[in-house]
C-alpha cells in the first residue's frame, strides 16, 4: 500500500502523518508542493496538518491552488483515496473536493486539547475499524475548525451517511457538531481532529490508530 504525504512550505504535521502511515504498514513518499504529479501507483494521498502557507488569506486557500493539489484533484476524480487532517481538511474544502467551508472557531481562539468524538459511520475504508456509535478521544489543535454548511448540505451529508465523526462537546461551533466528512464516493475523508497524535501508547491514547490500520488494510487488499 502506497501513501503520499504532501509537503507545503508551512506544513508541520507532515512527518507525524508519515509516521502514522508507516506504523500502520504503508510505504510512504513525501511529495513537494511544487511537483505537478504524484508518484506512480499511489493509493492514498495524505494532506497533513499545519499552516501550509502560513494560513495567510484563508487557511488552506493558497495550498488548494498549488501544482501538486491539481494532481490530487485529478487523483480523486479517478477514484483515488485522500485523507486530509486539520489543515488538510481545510485544503480539501478549498479545492471543492469536499463540500462546505471551515471558518474561525466560534470562540475565536486557537484550541488544543483532547476531545471526545462519536463515530457516526463505519461504512468507509477510514472508519471500518471502529464500531458505529463508539466514543473515541482524539486531540484537536486549530483556529479555524468551525465547519459551515447550509441546511440542505447538512441534510444531504446525513442522508448519505457521510458524517464520519461528531464532537460530543462542540469545541468550535461546527454545524451539527461535525468533526469529519466523506466525499460522495466515500474515498476522501477530511477531519479536524488529529488521529496521528493518538496513535501510539506514548501519546497517551491510541484511538486514532484504527483509522490508519483500517485504511492501510483495506487498500492493501484492494
Amino acid at each position, binding site marked *: 500500500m502506497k501513501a503520499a504525504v504532501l509537503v507545503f*512550505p508551512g506544513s*508541520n504535521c507532515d512527518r507525524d502523518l508519515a*509516521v502514522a502511515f508507516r506504523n500502520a504498514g504503508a510505504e510512504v513518499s513525501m511529495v513537494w508542493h511544487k511537483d505537478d504529479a504524484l508518484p506512480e501507483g499511489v493509493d492514498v494521498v495524505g494532506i497533513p*496538518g*499545519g*499552516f501550509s502557507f*502560513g494560513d495567510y488569506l484563508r487557511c488552506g486557500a493558497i495550498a488548494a491552488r498549488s501544482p501538486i493539489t491539481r494532481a490530487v484533484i485529478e487523483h480523486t476524480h479517478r477514484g483515488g483515496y485522500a485523507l486530509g487532517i486539520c489543515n488538510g481538511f481545510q485544503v480539501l474544502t478549498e479545492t471543492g473536493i469536499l463540500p462546505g467551508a471551515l471558518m474561525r472557531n466560534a470562540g475565536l*481562539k*486557537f484550541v488544543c486539547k483532547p476531545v471526545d468524538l462519536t463515530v457516526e459511520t463505519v461504512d468507509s475504508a477510514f472508519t471500518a475499524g471502529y464500531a458505529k456509535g463508539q466514543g473515541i478521544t482524539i486531540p484537536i*489543535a486549530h483556529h479555524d475548525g468551525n465547519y459551515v454548511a447550509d441546511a440542505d448540505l447538512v441534510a444531504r451529508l446525513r442522508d448519505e451517511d457521510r458524517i464520519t465523526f461528531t464532537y460530543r462537546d462542540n469545541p468550535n461551533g461546527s454545524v451539527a457538531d461535525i468533526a469529519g466528512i466523506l466525499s460522495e464516493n466515500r474515498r476522501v475523508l477530511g477531519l479536524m481532529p488529529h488521529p496521528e497524535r493518538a496513535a501510539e501508547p506514548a501519546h497517551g491514547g491510541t484511538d486514532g490508530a484504527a483509522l490508519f490500520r483500517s485504511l492501510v488494510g483495506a487498500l492493501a487488499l484492494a
Partner: protein
Amino acid sequence: MQEPAITDELIAAHGLKPEEYAEILRILNRAPSFTELGIFSAMWNEHCSYKSSKKWLRTLHTEGPQVICGPGENAGVVDIGDGQAVVFKMESHNHPSYIEPYQGAATGVGGILRDVFTMGARPIAAMNALSFGQVDHPRTRQLVHGVVEGIGGYGNCFGVPTVGGEVRFHPAYNGNCLVNAFAAGLADADSIFYSAASGVGMPVVYLGAKTGRDGVGGATMASAEFDEGIEEKRPTVQVGDPFTEKRLMEACLELMASGAVISIQDMGAAGLTCSAVEMGDKGGLGIRLDLDAVPQRETAMTAYEMMLSESQERMLMVLRPEKEAEARAIFEKWDLDFAIVGETIPEDRFLILHKGDCKADLPLSKLASSAPEYDRPWVETPPAPEMAEVPGIDPIDALKALIGSPNYAAKHWVYEQYDSQVMADTIRRPGLGAGIVRVHGTDKALAFTSDVTPRYVRANPVEGGKQAVAEAFRNLCAVGARPLAATDNLNFGNPEKPEIMGQFVGAIQGIGEACRALDLPIVSGNVSLYNETDGSPILPTPTIGAVGLIDHVDQVIAGTPQEGHLALLLGA
C-alpha cells in the same frame, strides 16, 4: 544623503553616557560618523553588551561533563547520549510585549527559536514564563490576551509544541509585564554550528526575509526604562512572520546538512551589526559588508537604518565558496532571499560600504571586546520585615482562597491556546508540572520546566535564587527525569540603583550556589534590566528553565491522582 551631525543630544538619544562617548573618541582617535555612532550604541547597550551583569554572570556554575557548549553562543548545548544533544535557551521580550502584546510576544518566540536552529538543532519544545500586573488593572486583560495569542500565533504556525510555562499576576508588573520565552532543539552532537568565522576572503551571505526599517533603535529601547515618552518609541515594534521563520529553519537545516556553512549567526537585536561583529570577533577576522547587496523591503534605506534594522527572520552566514550554487538552490526552493553581502578580511576592520561611500570603518575586535563593563554599586537586601501573625482561618476556606486566586488557578485558558502536541512526540502536555517530549525515533525523552517565585526573591534574593533552582530541579525529578542543565532569564529593575543591583547580585549568588550543590550547570541565559515604569521596579524575577533526561519513556512518572491513592510527603 547627508548624515546628521553628532551632538550631545544625539549621543544621549543613543543611550550612550558622556564617558562612554569619550571612550569611543579614544578608540577611534576621531569623531565617529552617524552610522558608526549607531553601531557603537547597538554594541554597547545593556542588551547586547551585558555591561552591568557580565561581572556577576562569570560566577555562575557553567561546566560539567554533559556540557558541550556553555554560555556565549546562541544557545547552550548539552549531551544526551547516543551522539545526540539538546540545545536550549530562554530569552525575554518584555518591553516590546508591553508596547504591542501580540507582536512583541510573537517576535520573542521567533527570536528564541532562531537562536536554537542557528546552532543546527530542530526545535522540539517551547515554554513561556509570563508575569502580568493585577488582574483588575486596566491594561492587564489586553496584555494577557495579546501576549498569549502572540505566543500561540507564532509557535503554532512554526510548528513547535509548547509544553510548559508559568503565569503570574502581581501589581509590581502593572507597568511592565514579563514575557520570557524558552526553546529547546535536538541536534547531532557532532554537527553543532557556531558563530566564529574562519578563513579570509570567504563570502558573507544574507539569508531569509528582506530588511525593512523595523525597530530601528529597538535594541536601545529594550534597555531603557519606560517613561511618559513611550508613545514616541512605538514604531520600534516589529511584525513577526512565523511562516517565513518555518521556511528559514527548514532551509538552514538543509544548508547545514549540505556542508556549505562555515559559521552562522541569527540576526536579532541590531541584526546586521551584532551578527557580523560577533562572527568576525570570534574568528579573529575583519568583515566587509556591501549594503547595496542587502535585500531590502523598503526604498531609500540608509546605511544607518540597515545596520540597526531589527527585521525578523534573517540570518548571516559565512559560506564555503565552492558550495555557493548548492546553497543558493536550497534557498530558492524555499522562496527565501540569498545574497552575498560581503566577505571576511584579514585586517581587524568592520568596513561598511554603501552607494560607493564608506559609511563605517571601525576596529572590529574593539567593538566587541571594549564594551564598557561596570561593577555597579550594590547594597545587600535588608532582611524582610517579620510577617504579621497569620490569621486563624479554616483550612478549607484557606484552600478555596488559594485555588480561587489567579496565581494558583488552573492555567488551561492559556496553554490550550498553544499547540502542545505538534511533532507527535509530546508525552506530557502542560497542566501537571514538567512537560515531556520524546526524542524522536527513540525511547528517550526530555523533560522541561520553568520556575521562580519572585516574592521569595524580593524577601531574600539569595534564598529566592536558590529556591528557583531547587523548584526546577524538583519538578524534573517528579516526572522521573535526571536534571541535566539549566538556562536563566534574569529580569530585574534599574541596575543603576544599588538596591536593585543588590537583588541582582544576591539572586545570582543563590542561583550559583544551588546549581553547584545540585550539579546543574547554567548553559545559556539572558538578562533583562531596567524593568521599571516611572521609577517603580518589578519584583526581582530570575526565571530558571531546566531540562532533564528520561532514559526510557516507561520510566516517566505520570498518572493523575485517583481515589484510594496514598499521599506521601517526602523531604524536609
